[in-house]
C-alpha cells in the first residue's frame, strides 16, 4: 500500500511517500501502526483533529476500511484558493 504525506505532515515525517506493508483493517488501525514506529511519526499523528485522510484520492475518515485501497494520503486541512 502506498502512503503519502503532504504539507507539515510530509515535513514532520521527512518523506513524501512510502510503501507500507500492513494488515490494518481501517485507517485508524493504520495510523496506530505508523504512530508506533518512531517519534517523527508519533509527532505527525499526535493531533488527529488536524489530520485529514484520502483513500485512492477521495476524502475519507478514520473508520473507513482499507480493503482494496492502493493509496492512502494523510494531510492537514486544505488551504488552497
Amino acid at each position, binding site marked *: 500500500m502506498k502512503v503519502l504525506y503532504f*504539507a507539515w505532515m510530509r515535513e514532520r515525517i521527512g518523506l513524501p511517500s512510502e510503501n507500507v506493508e500492513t494488515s490494518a483493517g481501517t485507517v485508524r488501525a493504520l495510523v496506530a501502526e505508523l504512530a508506533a514506529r518512531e517519534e517523527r511519526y508519533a509527532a505527525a499523528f499526535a493531533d488527529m483533529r488536524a489530520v485529514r485522510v484520502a483513500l485512492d484520492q477521495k476524502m475519507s475518515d478514520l473508520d473507513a476500511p482499507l480493503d482494496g485501497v492502493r493509496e492512502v494520503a494523510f494531510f492537514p*486541512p486544505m488551504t*488552497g*484558493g
Partner: protein
Amino acid sequence: MAVIRVQAEDFDLGREVDAVRAGRTDIGAVVTFTGLVRDMGGGQPVSAMELEHYPGMTEAALSQIAAEAEARWPLQALSVIHRYGALNPGDQIVLVVAASPHRAAAFDAASFVMDYLKTRAPFWKKETTPDGARWVDAREEDDAAEARWRDA
C-alpha cells in the same frame, strides 16, 4: 464540461474569458473570481508563498466541485484554473470563470466553486514571513462558507 487546469504557469484572465465567449451570443453574464497572493497573512508581512498540492487528487476534486456547480445552476461554461509552486505577493493563485444566461446563477456558481475549493481541493499554502516559513492554518470561516450551500 468544465475546463479544469492545475499548473505552475501563470494564467491570463482576459484570454480565459475570451475563450469562454468565443463564437457564442447566448451568454448573458460572466462572473470571474481571481485569487491573489497577499503581502500580509496572519498579521505578518509575507514575502513569498509555496503552494503544495496532491497531483491526481487535485484535478479529481476540482472536477467534482465543477460538476456539482453545473448540476446546480444553468451554466454555459465553467473554468477552474489553480496554480501550484513558488509564488510571490501580487501573483495570481486561482481563477474561476462562470457563464450563464442570468447573473444570479453566474455569481452563485463562482462563489460556490471557491467555497468548496477552499475546503475540498488538496492545496496547502506555506508563507515566508520575517519569522521564517509557516504553513497557513485552515480558517473556520471557510468551513462556514461551505456549509451555507448545504443548508440552502
